[in-house]
C-alpha cells in the first residue's frame, strides 16, 4: 500500500521552457529526497521525456510530485497529466522504436526502464495520466 507522506506540489507544462523547468525542479526534489547522482539523472531524464511528450502531443498539462512510502521504502512519485488526445495503443507505445513524431521512439519504453514503477492511464479524446515512481536505495 503506497501512501503519501508529504504535501503535494505541481507545475504547469505548456512551453519548451517548462521542460527545462521540470528538469530543474525534479532535480532539486530528487536531491532533497536523498537520491544518488545516477538515480537523480535517471529520474530527471524520465521526467524530461514525459514533459516533452505532454508539450508535443497534448500542448499542455501538469506535473505533480509527492514523496511516498511503502512499508520500509520511501520514494518519489511523479504524475504527468494532460487533457490531450490520449494514447491509442498503450502496448504499441511501450514498444521500442515505435514513434509517431520525429524522435527515436525511446520515450515511453525508455522511461519505464529508468524508473521502478510506471502506470499509464489514458482515454482517447480525454487525456493521459502517467505515474512514475523511484524508491530511494
Amino acid at each position, binding site marked *: 500500500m503506497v501512501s503519501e507522506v508529504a504535501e503535494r506540489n505541481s507545475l504547469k507544462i505548456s512551453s519548451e521552457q517548462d521542460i527545462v523547468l521540470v528538469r530543474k525542479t525534479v532535480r532539486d526534489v530528487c536531491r532533497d529526497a536523498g537520491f544518488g547522482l545516477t538515480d537523480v539523472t535517471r529520474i530527471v531524464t524520465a521526467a*524530461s521525456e514525459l514533459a516533452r511528450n505532454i508539450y508535443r502531443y497534448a500542448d499542455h498539462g501538469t506535473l505533480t510530485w509527492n514523496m511516498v512510502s511503502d512499508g520500509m521504502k520511501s520514494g518519489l512519485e511523479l504524475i504527468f497529466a494532460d487533457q490531450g488526445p490520449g494514447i491509442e495503443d498503450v502496448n504499441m507505445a511501450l514498444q521500442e522504436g515505435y514513434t509517431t513524431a520525429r524522435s527515436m521512439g525511446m520515450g515511453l519504453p525508455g522511461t519505464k526502464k529508468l524508473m521502478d514503477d510506471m502506470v499509464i492511464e489514458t482515454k482517447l479524446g480525454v487525456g493521459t495520466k502517467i505515474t512514475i515512481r523511484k524508491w530511494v536505495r
Partner: protein
Amino acid sequence: MDDINVAVLRLRNVLIVSVPGDPDDHVITGLQDKILNSMMRYRAKGVILDLSTVDIVDSFFARTIIDTAQMINLMGGRTIIAGMLPSVAITATQLGLTFENIETCLNVDTAFTLMEQTG
C-alpha cells in the same frame, strides 16, 4: 541562429563545441545550425562535442546529436563525442540510446589527439 549561447571554438582545423549544461530544445536545435555553418566557414575537418557539463541527455537531445553527426559526415567531417559523465552514460544506455557509430573519447584532450593523429 546566433542568439544561442553555445561556444564553438576552432583549434587548428578542428571545432570544439561546448554544449551548455541544461539546454532547452531551441538551444539544441540552434546548436546544430551553428556547428554546420562553422564547419563551412572554417573548413573544419571535424567536430568535438564536449558533453562534460551536460548532466541530462534525453531522447530528443540524443536524436539531435546523432542527426548532427550524420550531417557533419555528409559535409566530409568527423564527429567525436567527448566527456560524457558516468551518470549520463548509464542513463543513456538504459534509455536505449545507442549513438550509432559516433566516435567517443574520455575528454576533449584525447579527442583532439585522436583527431590530429588519424584525421
